[in-house]
């Protein structure tokens, strides 16, 4: 329609005028008789309106009598992009910054890089992935809130942002917003200072989906928790989706109000545990493809088995490998990679038995000495077994020396405790969480 109109306009105005003002215009959409005409800039917008508005409108009406009005809209620069192609074959000798990874959408704060296409699903995060898919199918109703927890570097942020990006794609009319709880907190803080709490509330309440990352920062911050609580209620009652993440299960985040805890658990709480070896290998391979490098199988296996619990660390190592491959212009040998690993991963900390005992006894709030004593009080037995388990599992001490260090016990006692804890954590979630927490303090 616009093409035909342009031909008529071209006849009516001078060639110079036509190529200046009409060349880059197009009809964006038509809504109830209102035509939205896309123009390249505000200068054109203003001038078309001033000078040619009536003539354009007349021509459009002749072609289609339903046309009631004409609006001019400046076309976003991004949409016009891509008409210029990059110079082929030219390689800048200076490395460029990885800026393309840091485009964050202003309206929803999501990073478009995080999608399900590059999200590796393995046995370890299957449940979290499935829960997210259910939420995407029916946002606001299926699991509300969706609470994802797991240690740092397990892909919580990726998963949540991917859910956001997917919801955005499937339901363009839904307004959503991603933020870290830190941001929520600091904005609330400024709002309180400037006496603009109401505006703050209104701003967030207009969204249909809110994704809040790292909720554990709210621990011990009562005012924030209160605000979040109210926010939560208004949100959930009106059937809007909330997605949270944290490094721990809501029930064991210390300094969190019970009423919030209850609400977090009311929807679906899923855990992203440590990735298994196969998944880690898939992740290593996926990262290699994005970096355009190929690694032999033994290297992949070595990487996957040396970095156990942190996917982000895997990413870091692959980054280094890719850079070094580029620099040296050849594939790295397994030995070179082992070296990189040695220099760039967190060294396993060495702790004395005494320190482990102290941390565990502090955690359970018992006297340090009682671990070494012969007492069989229940509140001491559990921590003592945990100490033994940790010393064996994480520090690979021999059973006899553990027994010796802990008040001269027989090694069979230690074996028994170790096996007991090992069995129990499979069924007792409370115990396994406790151990997880102790581990994070070591």
């Amino acid at each position, binding site marked *: 329609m616009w093409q035909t109109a342009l031909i008529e306009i071209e006849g009516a105005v001078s060639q110079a005028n036509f190529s200046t003002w009409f060349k880059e215009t197009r009809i964006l959409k038509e809504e109830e008789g209102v035509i939205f005409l896309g123009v390249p800039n505000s200068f054109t*917008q203003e001038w078309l309106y001033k000078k040619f508005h009536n003539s354009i409108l007349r021509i459009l009406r002749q072609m289609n009598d339903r046309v009631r009005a004409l609006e001019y809209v400046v076309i976003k620069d991004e949409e016009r992009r891509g008409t210029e192609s990059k110079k082929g074959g030219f390689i800048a000798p200076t490395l460029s910054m990885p800026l393309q990874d840091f485009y964050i959408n202003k309206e929803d704060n999501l990073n478009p890089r995080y999608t399900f296409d590059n999200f590796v699903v393995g046995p370890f995060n299957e449940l979290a992935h499935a829960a997210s898919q259910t939420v995407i199918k029916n946002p606001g109703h299926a699991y509300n809130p969706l609470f994802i927890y797991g240690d740092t570097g397990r892909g919580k942020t990726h998963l949540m942002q991917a859910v956001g990006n997917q919801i955005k794609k499937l339901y363009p009319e839904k307004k959503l917003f991603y933020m870290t709880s830190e941001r929520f907190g600091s904005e609330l803080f400024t709002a309180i200072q400037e006496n603009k709490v109401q505006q703050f509330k209104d701003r967030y309440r207009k969204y249909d989906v809110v994704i809040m990352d790292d909720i554990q920062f709210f621990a011990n911050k009562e005012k924030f928790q209160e605000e979040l609580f109210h926010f939560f209620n208004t949100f959930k009652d009106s059937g809007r989706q909330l997605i949270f993440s944290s490094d721990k299960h809501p029930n064991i985040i210390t300094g969190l109000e019970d009423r919030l805890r209850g609400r977090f658990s009311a929807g679906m709480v899923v855990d992203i545990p440590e990735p298994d070896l196969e998944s880690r290998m898939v992740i290593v391979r996926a990262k290699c493809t994005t970096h355009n490098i190929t690694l032999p199988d033994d290297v992949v296996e070595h990487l996957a088995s040396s970095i156990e619990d942190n996917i982000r660390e895997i990413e870091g190592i692959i980054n280094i490998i890719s850079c070094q491959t580029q620099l040296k212009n050849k594939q790295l040998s397994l030995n070179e990679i082992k070296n990189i690993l040695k220099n760039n991963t967190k060294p396993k900390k060495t702790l004395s038995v005494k320190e482990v005992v102290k941390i565990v006894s502090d955690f359970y709030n018992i006297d340090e000495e009682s671990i070494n004593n012969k007492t069989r009080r229940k509140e001491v037995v559990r921590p003592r077994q945990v100490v033994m388990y940790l010393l064996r599992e994480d520090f690979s001490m021999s059973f006899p020396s553990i027994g010796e260090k802990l008040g001269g016990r027989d090694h069979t006692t230690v074996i028994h405790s170790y096996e007991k804890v090992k069995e129990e954590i499979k069924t007792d979630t409370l115990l396994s969480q406790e151990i997880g927490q102790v581990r994070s303090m070591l």
Partner: protein
Amino acid sequence: MKFETNLQKLKESVALVERVAGKHITLPVLSCILIEVKKNIAILRATNLDVGMEISLPIKSQNEGIVAIPAKTLFSFLSQISDQNHVVQLELVSGNIQITSAKTRGVIKTMPIEDFPSIPSILEAEQFTLSSELFIKGLKSVYYSASVSSVKPELSSVYVYKDTGGLAFVATDSFRLAEKKLKISIPSQFNDILIPFKNVSEIIRALEYIKSDVEVSSNKNLISFRAGDVYVVSRVIDGVFPDYRQIIPKSFTTEAIVLKQDFINALKVSNIFSDKFNQVHIVVDPKTKVFEIQTKNVDIGENKTLVDAALTGERVEINFNYKYIADSFQSIDSDSISLQFSGLNRPMVIRPVSGEQSFMYLAMPMNR
């Protein structure tokens, strides 16, 4: 149309708007300055449809009217004439403009004014006032780092956003990045803007002409500056600037503190021998207290220059494009600068050591 005005004033205003007037544009009238004569005031306008500028000039008018004069001709002519009384007279005589000073008279052909577009103004915008001097400083400190290619419009722009306690100016072409922070009180609802790099120099020139405080308005598509007799409006890029803060290294492995002038001199010497990529090789070895710049060109020769420096951290050997380092010095006022390295594929951070420390520069190393 006929009026008389101060020659010097007219020269200055024409010089300013002439830069904006379009060159080689499909619409010939855009290469003109439009002069609208009213009672005691003349308004000069020019635009290239990316930037628009208006200057009003006090005059003694006899007849009102509007005329479009080719900017280049008017500017070249005016800049050559003089008058001991500093007065010039312009008169429209049968479609041509006749310019008369004491000894010189010129007649320039005009163009039809009908097609000269209006210069947009911003309605319903956020408005605030700030010192033009500070804004110039912000722009000048960073705009040379913007990308000259138009493939990514957001990178061929200067990004201005509200930071705690003021405004931050950032520009990058992805090989280096400059950031300047200024302490200015800004209304809390100020939205980020991307000013196209090629309009920045016109804006700077207009602000330098203004000198005083300036009223800034912006919306999604435009930013404008208004002060007294000057109005300048520029298109802004409706896009997203990458979250560049994630690229700034948070720690470093090696640091060198050098006198800026020493470093510049050493780089100048090195540049004589640099290759076609302007590659300079920097060696920092805190153990042996060596900070050395090396260049080598198979066709010319090679050189090594030592620079006195305070060094800490690990040994590093790394290559840079000379130009990308040298560019940063124009924005650094202090005597000493700090160079921080954090690995072979990470950017080097350059900061002033004393005085105003609101400037930061990142330069990416070369990969060979």
